[in-house]
């Protein structure tokens, strides 16, 4: 569904991604691990049209999407869910969700998706008129995910959903990712603080210093001494 071939990305003159290649199959969950500051977020942002300088080839369902802006990509069904949430602070929960359905293709499904999202996050239904800035960290995280779902996306790039979350909500996040995937949405998730999410992965990627250092299944990962060393300390 999503394929990257030798993708390079830059912030000004800083070379962040070096020949990154990966693929996420339709209906799968791929999880990307790796140390902080090594470019995991940049991979997601490059796919979603949020990085100015990207070279290489990015394919979505076989079509090249490299260089397209986020307004086109969201319309096509590719949505980014930011690690720092990026909500609209002085707007209500409902307005935030409605803006999630801003793209042309999502508008027709706004009502339907709103119901779906409220079923997934019942608390948001109760707090629909509350300002986003007054929500707790956990609720704001839920709102960010819900806003992403409002775009009617077929591919979600989810960036560190555990950031700023109380430990007891981590199970909840893993459960929600499972439910989203069960609805047929393909996911690429950057996350390494929630083992339950790694458990869900069909494919694992490890990004170190801007390059993919490991790609494979969970079973392969467990047999990899280098991975054991850096992530499990074994």
């Amino acid at each position, binding site marked *: 569904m999503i394929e990257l071939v030798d993708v390079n990305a830059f912030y000004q003159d800083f070379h962040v991604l070096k020949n990154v290649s990966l693929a996420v199959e339709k209906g799968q969950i791929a999880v990307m691990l790796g140390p902080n500051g090594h470019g995991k977020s940049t991979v997601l942002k490059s796919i979603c049209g949020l990085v100015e300088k990207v070279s290489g080839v990015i394919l979505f369902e076989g079509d090249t999407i490299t260089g397209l802006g986020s*307004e086109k*990509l*969201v319309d096509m069904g590719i949505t980014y869910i930011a690690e720092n949430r990026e909500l609209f602070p002085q707007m209500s929960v409902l307005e935030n969700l409605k*803006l999630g359905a801003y793209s042309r293709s999502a508008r027709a499904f706004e009502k339907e998706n709103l119901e779906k999202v409220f079923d997934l996050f019942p608390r948001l239904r109760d707090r629909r008129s509350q300002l986003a800035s007054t929500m707790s960290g956990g609720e704001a995280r839920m709102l960010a995910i819900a806003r992403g779902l409002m775009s009617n996306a077929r591919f979600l790039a989810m960036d560190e959903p555990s950031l700023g979350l109380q430990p007891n909500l981590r199970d909840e996040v893993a459960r929600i990712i499972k439910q989203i995937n069960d609805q047929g949405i393909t996911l690429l998730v950057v996350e390494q603080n929630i083992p339950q999410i790694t458990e869900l992965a069909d494919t694992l990627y490890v990004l170190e210093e801007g390059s993919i250092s490991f790609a494979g299944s969970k079973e392969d990962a467990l047999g990899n001494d280098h991975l054991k060393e850096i992530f499990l300390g074994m």
Partner: protein
Amino acid sequence: MVIEIADVIISGLINGSVYALMAVGLTLIYGVSKAFNFAYGSFYSLGGYIAFLLFSLSFINNYFVVFLLAVPILLVFGYFVEKALVAPLRKRDDWEIKVMMITLGLALFLDNSFQVIFGSRMKSLPPFLEGGFEAGDFYLSHQDVGIFFLSIGGILLFRWFLNNTRTGMSVRAVAQNPAGAQIVGIPKEFVFAATFAISTVMVGMGGILLAQKYFITPMGGWDILVKAWVITAFGGMGSIKGGLYAAFIVGMLEAFVGWYFGMTWTLIVLFAVLLTTLAVRPQGLLGKWG
């Protein structure tokens, strides 16, 4: 005495309402794109001159037609100014300063063009309503009432647009969180150009309204730029509500100071009040978007 004070209050309210319309426009651009438009005052004169030109056409003899034509002209003008001059700078370092410089250049260009085309003599527009209410010595012209309600109507219409339309919501979204707006797929560049265009209409309409009471001159916009700027800083950069309060305070202050001490004192008092306010509250009255 009582009637004089009533006149002063009315004058303050009417000027305040037009200032509010123009200050909301200025604070809109700043709130959404963090750009400061130095040509804002020249857009005020431009509105007046457009109306003057339209009236010089033989088949146009009422304000309804003038407004109907002036609004789209100003809208298109503002949109293309943003696209041609401001947008290309936004990708560069220190673009805010560069936008100030280029809009300053545009202001000088426009003002000199006005002088070349229309001459330096003052131009005036006919009043758009005749007659008035009379009660003894007290007189309130229909024109003043009309100007007041048109300005307030313009602001309310704008508020409605911000809160109830999809485009209005996307404008607020970009103002509150540009990165978030990009993530949900809002075309930021279009929103920047659209807000610039809307603010051009607001100040241009202000020019048409006030030109009926005062005059249109090639350099007349600078006074308006200074006032709109004072109001914006006074009310709080990017705060629409703050701008509204500040506009009426400035309108009233100007009217009372002008009446009591003479018109030469108005700007001095305005700046004194601004500096005092900013010394106590550097963010202005309501320094937040909303």
